């Protein structure tokens, strides 16, 4: 009965279920934890977008932080300059801005491959945040823009902490975007993206316009990046170039590999890892009272170690490992199945 419904309805129902669970969870969590829950949310959509581009379509981007940067500054500028816009419109425009940037990047990228593409996207991640120095009046240089978003309805102010409200907004936006990604991943487009990744010649003979497909992957993926950046700005009330370093771009890619390239679920595990590694290493550093120059680099180092271990153990990432486990649990005696068929 469920598979008679259009995919979008199934995915919306699943998203609604997730949203209800998350809202309940935020009531049980303290404000700090809610901030982290929201942070997982925007990293999730950034990594999920990257999953589409790199996992599904095989285009490696070392510069997805650049699209987050664009989204964050779109929200910051809109909040400051056009306060009449509601926050959902700001977030929508951040998504559009990321998508437009991705369209341009994708058009260039469709002509590049492998190391050249990686290099070009890396240059984007290095270069783009530097524009804040070029326009200090508008973008406030390296200090970045600070602002307050008054999105919480008057009736809710004081009844729930603002981080809880923010977590709801973030996850609502993230789940809506995930519905689109899930439609895409499960349908014809997802198949086309993967076909182009595997063999461009065969894909074009099957009637697929390879260049257009690659640009579309970039567009959707960077729109997700724009949304993620916009949500980050909304959550933190700042947009500063220091938040969008090359290290961010690299950790997004690392999170994707860690979680598993092949599916959107991998993005979830990757985003959780991204946020909680930071938390855990901070705790460890505090307990061991490490010097700050060591503790600052601890998350990245630990992240690297775990990444190597996981990828060695499960080449398909955490999601790949989980799937293997699931298959084993469901089919304890595979040989009998083999005989039956």
């Amino acid at each position, binding site marked *: 009965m469920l598979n008679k*419904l*259009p*995919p*979008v309805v199934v*995915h919306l129902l699943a998203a609604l279920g997730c949203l209800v669970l998350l809202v309940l969870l935020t009531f049980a969590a303290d404000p700090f934890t809610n901030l982290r829950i929201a942070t997982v949310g925007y990293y999730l959509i950034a990594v999920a977008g990257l999953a589409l581009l790199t996992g599904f379509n095989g285009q490696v981007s070392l510069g997805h932080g650049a699209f987050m940067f664009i989204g964050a500054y779109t929200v910051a500028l809109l909040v400051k300059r056009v306060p009449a816009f509601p926050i959902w419109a700001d977030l929508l425009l951040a998504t559009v801005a990321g998508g437009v940037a991705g369209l341009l990047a994708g058009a260039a990228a469709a002509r590049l491959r492998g190391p050249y593409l990686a290099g070009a996207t890396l240059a984007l991640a290095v270069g783009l945040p530097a524009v804040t120095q070029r326009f200090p009046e508008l973008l406030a240089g390296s200090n970045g823009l600070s602002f307050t978003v008054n999105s919480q309805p008057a009736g809710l102010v004081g009844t729930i902490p603002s981080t809880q409200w923010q977590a709801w907004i973030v996850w609502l936006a993230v789940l809506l975007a995930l*519905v*689109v990604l*899930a*439609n*895409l991943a*499960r*349908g*014809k*487009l997802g*198949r*086309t993206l*993967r*076909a182009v*990744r*595997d*063999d461009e*010649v*065969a*894909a*074009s*003979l*099957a*009637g*697929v*316009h*390879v260049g257009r497909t690659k640009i*579309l992957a970039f567009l*959707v993926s960077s729109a997700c990046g724009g949304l993620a950046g916009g949500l980050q700005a909304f959550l933190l009330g700042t947009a500063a170039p220091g938040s969008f370093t090359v290290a961010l771009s690299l950790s997004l890619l690392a999170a994707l590999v860690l979680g598993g390239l*092949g599916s959107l679920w991998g993005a979830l595990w990757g985003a959780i890892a991204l946020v909680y590694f930071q938390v855990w290493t901070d705790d460890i550093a505090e307990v061991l009272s490490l010097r700050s120059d060591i503790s600052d680099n601890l998350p990245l180092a630990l992240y690297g170690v775990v990444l190597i271990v996981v990828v060695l153990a499960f080449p398909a990432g955490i999601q790949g490992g989980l799937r293997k486990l699931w298959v084993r649990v469901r089919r304890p005696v595979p040989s009998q199945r083999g005989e039956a*068929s």
Partner: protein
Amino acid sequence: MSITSHEKLLHVGGVTVRFGGLVALSEVSLTIRPRTVVGVIGPNGAGKTTLFNVVCGFIRPETGDLSWKGRPLRKHRPDQLAGLGIARTLQGLGLFGGLTVLENVMTGAGRLARTGSLASLLGTGKSARDERELRDRSMAVLTELDVAHVAQLHPGALPYGVRKRVALARALVSEPELLLLDEPASGLSTGEMDELADRIRALTEKTAVVLVEHHMDLVMRVCDEVVVLDFGEVIASGSPDEVRVDPAVADAYLGTAPEELPSA
């Protein structure tokens, strides 16, 4: 509109292709009529695959022209071919390793899809119905080729002969009017080759086939007409029997005497 009304399905006229100093095709002309099987044979490096690449729009010829059903094919792109009704299998198979066998074949059926990218992005009921139809059609073709049991597997782990059938299924599912087969018999057992011969003959009810092949018995058995390429030039053409006894052909094949060429 019926294909029988077109005397010429595909016409290749005086095509020349050069790679630097190497002349890969030299003034090659070829006509494919509906529901016929034309063999293109020749030693390694004769230009057979290059000819396919010209037809498919991967390579622009230096001179010469192409036409499809009487209309000129100029500056066409490979991805437009499926829409015209031309399908091709690749010499190196070119299966999508990360897709299941069924997904591989469904990708080939894209021409028959009626909903576009946006519907897919929005996950509408219409796009889902479309997908179900593509799946059913693809399963039907896989069943016809006796490989339905591997539909959910990835092609990498399958035996070579099975993979060849999957590649053929991916080309056939779009119901092409012209099928370009690049060495479909390489790596097949004798039994599989017999089956392939029957299958190609059966295809001619609806489809014209251009068969590039090194296995002479297969070529002689299924082709209505054979074109022989050597160093990019057409050195002979005609019925299988005419070509078999052509001395130029024997010369091209390392001086093999005509009577030593495998017979049908």
